[in-house]
């Protein structure tokens, strides 16, 4: 088979158009707000109740067999910390903040993971499978909340993030942090129950929550919704929660990751071009050889 310049260009154009179309259809499909799975569970953290005792930080480490302790406390999520309490304090405003995986309804990490090490499983829990992971850390790039952490200091590193203590849920126990909290600042329940509870709290004490006048639940619509919900007395952005639209955070990851491979057109086109170049070079070399 011979490929002339005309055929090659035609193939490349077709591949480009295919990729563009597929990206457009992806975006169109996911502009519909994602809905939580019917069995979704999650957590509700109320920053106005948290007192910063950090019992949940230790309880998380115990529940997940993670090293480290409060006498040498972590200052952020890291390769051995899946849950952390932080403090926002500025201009007389003060609030604690609990940071862990949000268990997005449309997660970025799951869509970015090219070989399915990240999965949204039963109860909508986002889990990570160490037997599949190749350590590319695309999940870290895809997460708008900066949650997945990589064990940079170990020979066989793992991705570390909250998996909602699903090993304990299987035994009928609540997650470690929820069990430890002395103030019930973080509670566990089904997604629907938690949303209803949060709305009830806002109705009961509208003056307590942010923003004044029309309090919001972070995670109700943000980033397509998260199964971990937040109530706070200060601006969520000050607590490190990014300003996100109602679009699912998985949309962009899908556009990039899935768009490239859609219909296998782009890979075929890329390797087709490379093959053509090689074929041409070889032919030129053979010609040179025969000339000598």
């Amino acid at each position, binding site marked *: 088979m011979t490929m002339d310049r005309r055929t090659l260009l035609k193939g490349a154009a077709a591949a480009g158009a295919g990729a563009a179309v597929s990206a457009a259809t992806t975006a169109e499909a996911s502009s519909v707000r994602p809905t939580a799975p019917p069995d979704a569970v999650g957590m509700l953290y109320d920053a106005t109740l948290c*007192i*910063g*005792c*950090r*019992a*949940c930080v*230790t*309880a998380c480490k*115990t529940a997940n067999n993670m090293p480290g*302790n*409060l*006498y040498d*406390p*972590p*200052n*952020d999520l890291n390769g051995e910390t899946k849950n*952390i*309490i*932080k*403090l*926002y*304090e500025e201009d007389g405003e003060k609030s*604690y*903040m609990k940071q862990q995986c949000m268990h997005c309804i449309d997660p970025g990490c799951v869509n970015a993971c090219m070989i399915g090490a990240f999965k949204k499983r039963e109860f909508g829990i986002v889990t990570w499978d160490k037997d599949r992971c190749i350590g590319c850390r695309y999940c870290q790039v895809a997460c708008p909340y900066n949650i997945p952490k990589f064990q940079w200091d170990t020979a066989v590193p793992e991705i570390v993030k909250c998996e909602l203590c699903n090993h304990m849920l299987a035994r009928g126990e609540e997650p470690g942090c929820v*069990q*430890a*909290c*002395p*103030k019930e600042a973080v509670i566990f329940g089904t997604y629907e129950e938690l949303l209803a509870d949060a709305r009830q709290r806002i109705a009961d004490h509208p003056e307590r929550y942010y923003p004044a006048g029309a309090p919001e639940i972070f995670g109700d619509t943000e980033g397509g919704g998260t199964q971990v919900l937040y109530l706070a007395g200060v601006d969520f952005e*000050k*607590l*490190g929660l990014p300003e996100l639209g109602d679009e699912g955070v998985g949309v962009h990851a899908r556009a990039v990751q899935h768009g490239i491979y859609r219909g296998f057109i782009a890979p075929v086109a890329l390797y087709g071009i490379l093959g053509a170049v090689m074929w041409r070079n070889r032919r030129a070399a053979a010609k040179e050889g025969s000339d000598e």
Partner: protein
Amino acid sequence: MGWRDERLGVPAGSPRDEGVDRRDFVKVCTMAAAAVGLPASAGLKMAEAAEAGLKPSVIWLHFQECTGCTESLLRTSHPGLAELILDLVSLDYHETLFAAAGYQIEEALHQAMEANAGKYICVVEGAIPTKDDGIYCKIAGRTAIDILQDVGSKAGAVIAIGSCASWGGIPSADPNPTGAVGAPEILEGIPVVTLPGCPANPYNFLGTALQYATFGTLPALDDKNRPLFAYGRTIHEHCPRRAHFDAGRFVRQYGDEGHNLGWCLFAMGCKGPETHANCSVIDFGEIPGCWPIGIGHPCFGCTEKGVGFHKPMHQEAALPENAVPPIFPDHRSSAGAAAAGVAGLVGGAVIGAGLMASKKLAEGGGEEGSS
């Protein structure tokens, strides 16, 4: 000879019963010094001062209180009250302990104040009512305010023992019908060492009083004039149940599994995190475990103004904000620029040496090939 002497190992017919000899007296002084955390040499100094007749005069005032602080002091044994008031200090006025009453005891007060003006220790026990010109507490026709201003202003040192005298205590609890306040608010301009507690640990009093008696100095104080040796840290910092707090093991209900296992009482309203006192470090009245947390009850915050008798028992305490990271922590690398530079140099040297070695090897290989 009483049970206390038996416990202390004083043999029958010892000098105590027939007058004290020097050796035993120095022993008592040294024991007193050691018990309250003074150096051993302080015992000898104390004994010498007492022998020279320089025992400090103590005038003890009672106002609105339950006498619990005196009662606690009566039950100390290192030194015992007898040694304290007979050997180490000269207790010249104390309404509870004095056999005298009425005109007799008033006479004693005025005599002691005249004889030791500017030198005596004025100990205040109880809050002072200020409402309606202070008529709610009167002794010998004078209000508590008058007495305290009179006695306190001529003292060498003023020590407020107990929460009532320190900041108002129980009498100042809402609605505070008598307008009760602590001694420092009456004695403005005069430094008052406060030893809050309900009752105050007698050893904190002995440590302060004996240091003044021996060296003429007062211990280092915090911003609320509490001795740092006793009130420098919160109960929470040295709590025997602290490990349970850090691990999130909380008692949720009296009598539950965690309560039986001695877990942290924070969720039950323990005020340990906001209460400055040494209860978790020094046994009260030398009885191990004899304090609220020791018997499985939350700390009540009795020493802390605005906490004890003011906050509800089961309301959770405010926690200190130390060691909680900010929302966006600083992730500077632990390796400094210099260390990175050294590592770079070493790495470069290794690569350079490797290049040279491979070059040499290649040259050697070429020679072999040609031979």
